[in-house]
């Protein structure tokens, strides 16, 4: 019976949200919903483009920051460092993974936002309050580091010892071995870990909401505020019942989130499973 609940969950989620978002889908065409920036709930106009744009921008920036760090850390921990290091680092990663997102948000307000408004932005000659796409991306990147790093460590550990040994026996240096043998072997795994991080970042709500500024616009630079999809849903849940079709639009927003995240995860799983059968 409980297994039944599990099996039914994804279907229930999608059908339930689709059912709720039906009325907004009737009133507006799908392309209007996805590619229009016009957001006027009172006139029944719901264009999600600026929200989707913000979401994608924040997520991409966060990945840009965290993926290189994770990759270097994983290579160092599995290839160069003594195994003691890994034993010390593992609890740190686990604790970092366990910290609630609200704490990351508070930390973002305490540290990252002032840092950006006082030091980073003036360096580029820009004035900003600090609540910006960049702040959201930095906080997010810290949040997804433990997820990506954990998967990467697993993948690097699973590569058999003989491959690098063979490469070194042929006269390659350590770094050449890592570059041409290990990274190539681990490539599908790396891609899927990045996709996992991406889906995690895409759906993150509270921490991003607190630092990203929440202004519905197409940001021109990363120092301007944005308004990602999850923040939109969380911020407007209170008033959504008073305006017709508003709740339906927000449910459609969560449907977009769900579908995108499911697709990301599906792709990553496919990559990993194909990779597992290869070894």
């Amino acid at each position, binding site marked *: 019976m409980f*297994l039944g609940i599990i099996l039914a969950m994804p279907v229930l989620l999608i059908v339930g949200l689709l059912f709720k978002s039906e009325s907004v889908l009737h009133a507006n065409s799908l392309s209007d919903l996805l590619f229009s920036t016009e957001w006027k709930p009172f006139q029944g106009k719901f264009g999600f483009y600026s929200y989707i744009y913000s979401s994608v921008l924040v997520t991409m920036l966060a990945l840009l920051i965290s993926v290189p760090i994770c990759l270097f850390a994983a290579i160092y921990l599995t290839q160069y460092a003594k195994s003691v290091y890994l034993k010390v680092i593992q*609890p740190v990663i686990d604790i970092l993974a*366990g910290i609630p997102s*609200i*704490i990351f948000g508070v930390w973002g307000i305490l540290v990252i936002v002032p840092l950006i408004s006082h030091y980073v932005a003036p360096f580029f000659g820009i004035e900003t309050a600090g609540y910006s796409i960049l702040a959201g991306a930095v906080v997010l990147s*810290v949040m997804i580091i433990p997820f990506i790093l954990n998967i990467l460590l697993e993948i690097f550990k699973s590569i058999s010892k003989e491959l690098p040994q063979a490469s070194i026996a042929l006269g390659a240096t350590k770094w050449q071995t890592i570059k041409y043998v290990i990274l190539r072997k681990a490539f599908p795994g790396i891609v899927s870990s990045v996709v*996992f991080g991406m889906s995690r970042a895409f759906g993150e*709500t509270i921490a991003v909401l607190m630092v990203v500024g929440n202004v519905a616009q197409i940001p021109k630079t990363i120092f301007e505020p944005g308004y990602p999809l999850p923040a939109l849903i969380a911020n407007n849940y209170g008033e959504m019942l008073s305006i017709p079709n508003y*709740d339906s639009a927000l449910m459609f927003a*969560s449907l977009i989130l769900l579908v995108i995240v499911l697709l990301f995860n599906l792709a990553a799983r496919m990559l990993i499973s194909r990779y597992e059968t290869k070894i």
Partner: protein
Amino acid sequence: MQLSIALIVLVLSLIVFSIFYRGLPSLTWEMVSQTPKGGYYFGKEGGVLNAIIGSLYLAFGATILALVMGLPVAMLMNIHLRKFKKLVNGVRFLLDLLWGVPSIVYGAFGFSVMIFFGVKTSLLAGIITVSLFILPIMIRAIDEVVRNVPVGLLEASMSLGSNKSQTAFMVYVRQCSSAIVTAIMISFGRAIGDAASVLFTTGYTDSIPTSVMQPSATLPLSIFFQLSSPIQEVQNRAYASAAILTIIILIISVLSRVISNKYNKNKIS
């Protein structure tokens, strides 16, 4: 490369340090022992006991519910459905997908279901939503260990005349107790720290709930609301509440390590 490691360690210590640095000075006994009094959100006296108790209720309820649903599923997958490899792998795949679904989607879904049935925001609705959200985590964490239990244990137990369910709940549970405790701890940590899914479903109130049908405050939301206040005094309390939440999470983290080490001793390998 050493730099990247240093950066990760530095960031963690920076997070903990900055939260405590801002939070601990405002953290008084009053904060953890009283519910908000009138005018609390304008800087008058009171504490966040309502949120602490509410969060604990919510997290305990959701974790227990998820364990009741999750443990049988994990056992079923590995003992009863042992022969159906494809089916079990399909379920694992599905669970991994569910693991990735953002909590706000669960929140929005739970909210629309509640409207459909005409239920108001309540502790019960929150517990159910959060338990659905942590269920995949719970099952996969238990499953990951149960699948590595040697077949010999199953065979020995079966040859002594016990049936599959007895084997599952009397032999396997004991064998995997450390993993189960770890799974419970991970799920509990997720449940207590998640704000997005309870935002819609649990509501917010200044009093401690006396029944599961009442709305309840939760610590993450309490931090969030206090932080959005313009008054410095209230913001300081938000930092103090954040420090409380961090302490709870750190305690859980340490506890799960200690317990899993302790249980690991009486385990056959």
